[in-house]
């Protein structure tokens, strides 16, 4: 019990005998006595499957599941169609590894090629990789792609997700690139006076952390005028209806793929996607699948442009990425295929309409108002007198309210919430704030 060894003890004895060994101790002759453990670990005894199940279910039972989630801030509660998780759970996909052996891995390779194509279509850019760890590390990797000998500064929008900003800063602590934070003015990125010929790239998020739509084209123009690249951090669930970053001037688009069929899962595993324009293609980190043919001319897919990668280039590689988030990428591909262009458009339209409905209804309440002017997508910040009480009141009714920001809440609505849930939310906020009719 407790080890998943298929062989019976007697069979293992036979294996030892075949090796001329008397037992396990003989296997570890090279391990110095001084570091060999002489007894079991300081851990509980092994458990049977049923006991483990009970323990794990008890853990899951200690979490509170909200029936309505009006919080986003980097993780989004979208509807996940049944086919998505079923298809992604196929054992052949789950238990394979990186498709090093193309001849028996065409299925995984083709799924990645299809994923890359969908990411190119969504972003309006020329080439995408097979995925990196998450949206934040994708942003940090994109910044590293832009560095050159003369340009070692990254200007990062202060209206981007705080975790993304911090991740870029950490990666730059490693690489020695300088990070300059562009202030958010009225909730939107202001690049005034920050761009010079030392700037390698500008990172902006669309929609930004506060849910606001930035003037992407103007920001891209400013970056390009200074000779810098524009990196767009985008939410893929918006790209059925919002202009593709490639179309408004982004050189690289990255983002968190979680909204595409991945459950919230307390933050992971998620999916970092990256796409770039043709000239930057060979700077992309990580695995990239390409199309080729075998000797008989049959279409074939392979891991390609490996001269960028760590196993070939070692310390000169474009990145250290080895394992990625392939199964999450496959999940996203299934989601996008099932939704299709029409479905993704519906998701975008409904997120937008429902968020605006909630914002309108909340702002009808005395003392509640939108913090920032101008267009937003499916997240928005309301100032309100008592965020803590509001959240507690909502929580008591199974509703996870907006993410608390100083003196306000950052709300999020997706296609999943019904008008009835939104009305109930408004009624509770009204009650907590003690507003009479």
């Amino acid at each position, binding site marked *: 019990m407790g080890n*998943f060894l298929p*062989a019976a003890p007697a069979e293992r004895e036979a*294996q030892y005998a075949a090796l001329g060994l008397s037992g396990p101790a003989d*296997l*570890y002759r*090279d391990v110095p006595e001084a*570091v*060999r453990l002489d007894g079991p670990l300081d851990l*509980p005894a*092994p*458990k049977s*499957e049923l006991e*483990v199940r009970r323990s*794990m*279910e008890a853990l899951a039972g200690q979490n*509170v*599941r*909200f029936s309505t989630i009006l919080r986003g*801030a*980097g993780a989004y509660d979208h509807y996940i*169609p049944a086919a998505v998780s079923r298809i992604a759970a196929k*054992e*052949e996909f*789950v238990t*394979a590894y990186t498709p090093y052996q193309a*001849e*028996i891995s*065409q299925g995984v390779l*083709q799924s990645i*090629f299809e994923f890359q*194509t*969908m990411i190119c279509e969504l972003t309006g850019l020329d080439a995408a990789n097979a995925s990196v*760890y998450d949206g934040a590390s994708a942003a940090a990797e994109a910044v590293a792609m832009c560095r050159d000998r003369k340009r070692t500064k990254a200007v990062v929008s202060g209206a981007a997700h705080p*975790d993304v900003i911090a*991740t870029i800063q950490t990666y730059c*602590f490693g*690489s020695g690139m300088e990070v300059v934070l562009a202030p958010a003015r009225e909730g939107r990125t202001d690049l005034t006076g920050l761009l010079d010929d030392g700037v390698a790239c500008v990172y902006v998020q669309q929609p930004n952390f506060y849910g606001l*739509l930035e003037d992407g084209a103007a920001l891209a123009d400013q970056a390009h005028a200074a000779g810098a690249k524009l990196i767009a951090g985008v939410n893929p669930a918006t790209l059925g209806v*919002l202009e593709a970053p490639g*179309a408004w001037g982004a050189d690289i688009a990255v983002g968190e793929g979680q909204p595409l069929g991945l459950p*919230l899962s*307390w*933050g992971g595993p*998620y999916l970092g996607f990256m796409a770039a324009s043709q000239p930057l293609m060979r700077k992309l980190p990580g695995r990239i699948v*390409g199309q080729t*043919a*075998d000797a008989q001319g049959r279409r074939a897919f392979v891991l*390609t442009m490996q001269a960028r990668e760590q196993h070939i280039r070692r310390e000169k590689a474009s*990145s250290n990425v*080895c394992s990625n988030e392939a*199964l999450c990428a496959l999940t996203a591909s299934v989601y996008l295929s099932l939704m299709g*262009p029409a*479905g*993704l458009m519906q998701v975008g339209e409904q997120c937008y*309409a429902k968020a605006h409905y909630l914002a309108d209804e909340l702002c009808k309440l005395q003392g509640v108002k939108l913090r920032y002017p101008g*267009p937003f997508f499916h997240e928005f910040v309301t100032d309100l007198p008592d965020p803590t009480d509001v*959240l507690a009141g909502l*929580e008591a009714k199974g509703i*996870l309210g907006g993410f608390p920001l100083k003196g306000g809440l950052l709300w999020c609505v997706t*296609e999943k919430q019904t008008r009835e849930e939104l009305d109930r939310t408004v009624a509770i906020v009204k009650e907590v704030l003690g507003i009479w009719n």
Partner: protein
Amino acid sequence: MELIFERSRPGRGSQILPPPDVPAAPIPAEHARKRAPRLPEIGESDLSRHYQALARRAFGVCDGFYPLGSCTMKYNPKLGEEMAALPGFTGIHPLQPAHTVKGCQLAMAQTEYALSRITGMDRFTLQPAAGAHGEFTGLLLIKAWHRSRGDEGRTVILVPDSAHGTNPASAAMAGFTVKNIPSTAEGLVDLEALRAACGPDTAGLMLTNPNTVGLFERDILEITKIVHDAGGLVYYDGANLNAIMGVARPGDMGFDVCHLNLHKTFATPHGGGGPGSGPVGCKEFLAPFLPGSALGGNGGEQSIGQVRAFHANFLVVVRALAYLMTLGNSGPAEAARGAVLNANYLKKKLEEAGYRSAFPGLCMHEFVLTLEGLKKEAGVSALDVAKAMLDAGIHPPTMYFPLIVHEALMFEPTETEAPETLDRAAEVLSEILRRAHEDPESLHAAPVSTVIGRPDETAAARHPVVRYVFPEG
């Protein structure tokens, strides 16, 4: 087979969402998309068959023997999948208030505790999403520690020439210069070369133990002492922990910081390339530098920051915790012994069949063959042998790694294979060796039973086609 885009027909699709129940609100024209993304338009039935066809063209641990060295392709218990699908885990938002996520926090704490016991480290962060991500994180801890002491001149990370490519790549990303340490003829770290390389610029050494040729560095205490005496720290690449878990602990060998690969040692599935999880453990003195999260809870004042959003690849952690609970206090050593036993058993069989090990004698959980001789004698390469294995339904071993062995094939059978599976693999390889001498051409032509033959990789890299090109361009 067709690409999903080639199966697409205009107007097809599924009705997933109800019509909107709030007033329509138009997207502002200046932000609205002008041309819809060309996503597939396909019914659910055809979609289902498409992915079933792809699954048939994939090869997982569920399909057969997968002795891919350095990757620990052990069986992934199904319980882990069910536990990771519990709605009490999947339905939790990463920014829920602390009192509503006690179960997640406990799962993290229990995993950290178990990993600390197994490695002899004091503290863990579960933030890194893979082994390489862990390396990067661990190296930043080393960098931050030297800086905190005003020791800015320590800019060099020592890496054995047998190391995995991610080691030097991570060191470079962390801003270090890489200095290679040669291996001895026995495949171990050359102590004299290590001593000579150590100096006031040494930030640390990265080491896998057992190393990438499958040997335990028996001078490990001397190695870590040399680096410590020079003022450096020692990093443990835990990719090979499966050989020694429960038997010996990196924390007792003098390592200061380590990463583990939950997707190797702790039986979480590899997902066709990921997601994985690369927890980083460290000794107490490095704990102040551990990562935090801007929104999900900050690290300490001296924290290196964060390497991804939120907390962890949490569902991977959940699977690993289920495995750790199953193993308990005695299972880790039993698993490790099983892995080492199976590796030695297969190694001996292959040597008896006429293959040459790069390093003789007992190995740990994996071993490396060198086919240099075969290449010279018969013109048959490691690649040819690997491709011939495909026709026998066995996933080939890792090829051409580590770089210090010519024509390398690295086998890691893992503990979850029964002896007859190893016997059969040995027979298959024995037969391939016979063919290498009698009919080498047949090996150059392999594989012949797969859906494609060897693809033209050169053409793929020279003229990259990395996305489907629609007929209309």
